[in-house]
């Protein structure tokens, strides 16, 4: 397997000078020298907000974070966890939304990546076209979709009318709003999954796949037994990154249904709820509690996922 690696002839050909003492130290400690800067950067920026939010969640802060507040221990937590009107439905919507969009995005993303794997004419433009949903400004995208899906003057119903399907409420209907936002999300984020999977695919060698084909394996078998296992690390990465983002989805929901996720909170997920508590209601104690709980839920999901797939 090593024969095909471009082997450097030797150090003098590459023009590498003998290793000075400091470089030796760096090489020996490279594990942390390479990893530490990124970790320190993140830790430095995250510590204060995290501690601050945890502190606020234990108080009854409202109106202003600097106003007098009382330490109420776990009072907020009890209140939030027993709130079946806003909190638990928000949890449910968050779970539903995430599972659905993630499933479709992974499947569609994989299909697209597989289709684009081999070189073909015009592939640069196709790749560019696929990037467009990702690239378009989310603000404008949200307002654009709101217009497209307007039941009375929107394009969506006008298009349906052309094929004689009755107009749908789309974002306006109490039970159709969330699925419609799922549609928008899938449109917008499938490209990201496709891109990540494609990068992974292009770095796989063709040999195992061709060998399997010679052995007479069908397309599906080749995919399931050869390609997918090799692609697993990339798949996990895409799942993890998109999963976290999906749990935290905010822009699309806010742009299409506004504060509170609609009059009946149709699209109010945990992030939308926490945002409303902070910026709308100024209930900082409660919003911090929701944020901390949200944080823990995401970590829980990650733990489950990362534990399964990592080498």
């Amino acid at each position, binding site marked *: 397997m090593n024969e095909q690696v471009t082997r450097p002839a030797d150090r003098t050909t590459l023009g590498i000078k003998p290793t000075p003492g400091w470089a030796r130290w760096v090489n020996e400690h490279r594990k942390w020298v390479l990893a530490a800067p990124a970790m320190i950067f993140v830790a430095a920026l995250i510590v204060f907000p995290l501690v601050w939010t945890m502190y606020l969640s234990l108080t009854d802060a409202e*109106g*202003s*974070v*600097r*106003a007098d507040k009382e330490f109420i221990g776990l009072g907020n937590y009890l209140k939030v966890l027993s709130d079946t009107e806003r909190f638990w439905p928000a949890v449910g919507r968050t779970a539903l939304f995430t599972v659905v969009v993630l499933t479709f995005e992974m499947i569609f993303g994989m299909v697209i990546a597989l289709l684009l794997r081999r070189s073909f004419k015009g592939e640069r433009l196709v790749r560019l076209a696929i990037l467009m949903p990702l690239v378009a400004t989310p603000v404008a995208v949200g307002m654009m979709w*709101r217009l497209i899906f*307007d*039941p*009375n*003057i929107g394009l969506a119903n006008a298009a349906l009318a052309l094929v004689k399907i009755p*107009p749908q*409420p789309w*974002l*306006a*209907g*109490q039970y159709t709003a969330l699925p419609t936002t799922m549609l928008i999300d899938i449109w917008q984020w499938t490209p990201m999954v496709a891109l990540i999977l494609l990068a992974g695919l292009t770095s796989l060698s063709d040999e195992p796949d061709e060998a399997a084909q010679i052995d007479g394996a069908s397309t599906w078998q080749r995919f399931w037994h050869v390609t997918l296992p090799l692609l697993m690390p990339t798949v996990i990465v895409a799942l993890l990154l998109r999963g976290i983002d999906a749990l935290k989805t905010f822009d699309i929901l806010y742009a299409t*249904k*506004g*504060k*509170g996720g*609609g*009059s*009946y909170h149709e699209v109010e997920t945990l992030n939308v709820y926490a945002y*409303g508590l*902070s*910026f*709308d*209601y*100024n209930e900082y104690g409660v919003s911090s509690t929701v944020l901390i709980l949200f944080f823990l839920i995401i970590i829980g999901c990650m733990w489950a996922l990362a534990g399964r797939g990592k080498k």
Partner: protein
Amino acid sequence: MKRSTFLGLALVPAAATALSACSDGGASSGSTTLRVILANHVWTEAIKAAIPDFEKSSGLKVELTTLGEDQLSDQYNVKLNAGTGDLDVMMYRPLQEGKLFAKNGWMADLTSKSKADKAYDWADFQESPIKATTYKDKVVGVPIITEREVLYYRKDLVQKAGFAGPPKTLDELKAQAAKIATDNPGVAGFVARTGKSPAVTQFSSFLYSYGADWTTADGKSALDNPKALDAYKMYGGLIKDYGPKNVSTDMSWPQAMAIFQQGQAAFYTEADSLYKNATDPTKSKVADTVGFAQFPAGPAGSKPYNIPSWALGVNKASTNQDNAWKFIAWATSKEMSLKTQQAGVPSARNSVWANPEGVKGYPKDIVDATLASVKVGVDHDRPVVVKVSQARELVGAPIVDAITGKDVAASVADAHKKFDAFLADEK
């Protein structure tokens, strides 16, 4: 590209970041620079154009930031909570966040400043708007824009249906909307905001015109008043029965206005400050047949709201309060108020309204409607509380239920209970 080239390129931003972190950041030194935050509004456009004159005459430099309404609100939330002196003059909504800001001690006391200069003429400001920018007898803001609810209507459709003019009472409105809707399939008789929170302000005029209000004199919920129930039923019923098909239950003004602009509704109750959206031919298909009338009378008369939608205040944590006042005094002076009113923004100064120059350029029926509304207007268009957002959602829920055909009486009773508990909590 070679790795070393890339590495070099990457280090440039690193150096730039380190440098810029120190310079160009944050507050400017010296108090001759004024940090002003304004909302995107026609008023702001007019002021922006005149700022160079202000800078010349005062010797101050104005660093202006303009933002959309919601973004503005978010900015204030973060900056005022952090308590730093990064902004001096703020444009805020007295009825939405005024009480909260004042209660939190974020507004500077302008009482003495406002009364100091006779030429400024504090007494010239209309009474209701001033009330909204005063907290516990202290002046905390100067109102700059006022608005009232009026009836937008389609002159052509009213005429075609054989009516002499726009409806003068709410019952007439219902009748006219019904007839026009039947005669013109595809056109709704009536449209208005439907979102739980956005609709509250436009619904308020209905509430007052039925003789009800949000709270009683001693601060309890007044939603158990049977007249309130009638008001909810009227507003919701109009939209349910004569509104657009499949109407969305989260329309704020952009969505409702779009329906009217496209010619798909005959009547629309909305704030008069938005009138240009209907009369501008580049925006509205019905620009040449739209008319404006005073809000139709309910059993208790025509009682639309007359409120200051925006005001200017000074950040209490600002280190530049005297100069901040200079800006406000200039922007709200008689001269500037006349200019902004001429640009299409209803001001809060009596003298400007009395001045014929001040009403030039407005469609005549809007001026009439406005002047009539000022006389009978109610000074609030939403519950006057600290936690306005929550209050709006509580009292707005029955509106949406009325629109979707649910049991309105039960919904109002429920809202009354919750609102009462909410008010007790606020005390």
